[in-house]
């Protein structure tokens, strides 16, 4: 059963079309990679799926809810990792997550568990601003899974994650529906069952893992 259904998603930035009539259906538990060159529309698509942006036209249904009308309800069930980590540098690693516990309405006990998952327990008291880029990315991933979302939207999360980044992503993607934008075809092949390729904002087709390998 499809957990996410998009029909004719179109997004304009002024007179430039960023996304044009993209259709999408993702089943529960499925992992889909979004591929494409820079400027292909990957981030725009992911921001719409994460309810961070509204499409200019088109329909989007996530978990049976109209994603354009029920955005706040859906945000309890969606985790989003954006391009920039978007952390609070003056707060510690744990404080960053504790703050989002209050906003997500989840117990602070989740902080320790989540830091363990992303391998940041040892730097829980360090200021987020003093962490390496890779650690900051891990913290952004931790924030995205803090509320145990059913749908994860990941925009190039592998950037600066390091050698065990793919293992970390495989771990956080387990038992979740995932839309993952990446330039790394090998990573997409390893972590996702299906790919959607965008070119100039248009879908140029989906493929299964086997086709990507070919």
């Amino acid at each position, binding site marked *: 059963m499809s957990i996410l259904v998009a029909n004719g998603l179109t997004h304009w930035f002024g007179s430039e079309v960023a996304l044009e009539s993209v259709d999408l259906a993702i089943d529960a538990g499925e992992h889909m990679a979004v591929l494409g060159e820079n400027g292909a529309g990957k981030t725009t698509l992911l921001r719409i799926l*994460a*309810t*961070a942006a*509204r499409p200019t036209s088109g329909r989007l249904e996530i978990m049976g809810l109209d994603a354009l009308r029920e*955005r*706040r*309800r859906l*945000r*309890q069930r*969606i985790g*989003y990792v*954006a391009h*920039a*980590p*978007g*952390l*609070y*540098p*003056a*707060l510690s690693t744990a*404080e960053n997550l504790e*703050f*989002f516990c*209050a*906003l*997500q*309405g989840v117990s602070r006990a989740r902080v320790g568990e989540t830091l363990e998952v992303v391998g940041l327990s040892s730097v829980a008291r360090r*200021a987020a601003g003093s962490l390496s880029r890779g650690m900051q990315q891990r913290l*952004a991933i931790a*924030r995205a899974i803090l509320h145990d979302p059913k749908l994860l939207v990941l925009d190039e999360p592998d950037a600066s994650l390091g050698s065990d980044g793919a293992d970390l992503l495989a771990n956080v993607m387990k038992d979740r529906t995932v839309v993952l934008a990446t330039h790394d075809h090998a990573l997409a092949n390893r972590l996702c069952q299906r790919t959607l390729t965008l070119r100039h904002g248009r879908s140029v087709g989906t493929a299964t893992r086997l086709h990507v390998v070919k």
Partner: protein
Amino acid sequence: MTNSFVVALAVARKDLRAEWRTRELVPALAQFVILALVIANFGFQIDSRNAPSIAPGILWLALVFAGLVAFGRAFAAEREQASLEALLLTPASPVAIFAGKALAATVLLVGCEAVLLPALALFFGTPLSIQVVAAVLLATIGMAALGCLFAAIVARVRARELLLPLLTLPLWIPFIVAGGQAVQVAMGASGSYDQAMALLVDFDILFLVLTSLAARFVLDE
């Protein structure tokens, strides 16, 4: 859904904690208001006779410009850190997030006022009474609500430093007029202190309601 009160307090606590650790804003604001008073001290011939009519004007000028900086930073910092999107992509009410930001900015401005008011009394010999403090605090509430709302609006545009005063100052005029009158009376000029304070309360209620209604639309996009 999350508890709005808890969210507002969490947002305010986060902002205040970040300011405590970085000390970016309050020392600069305190320095600014002291410098403003020093300049005014040399620029005006103030004595015990004209102090009650001139000092309130200096007080409100310093407060208005310090407020513009304090409220402008409330959302600009989130933009610079790219953290605003993460904040708004939670199920928390945008109104609660706005209230938390406004609360933190208010506390920072009150911290600045804690320097400004004694310094004003020191420089110009004006009385530092509970009536003066009450008038300034009442005006700060409404000014914070409006200032933070416009700061949230202009945080998305490039010329925010220019736009914020242009949008905010006209709507701060009622607070400056009523607050100015209340402070003048409290410093010894003639007039009705109670009437000015009642007007400040009315403006506070009006603008708190209006900004709460508008914040949802400003922050939800």
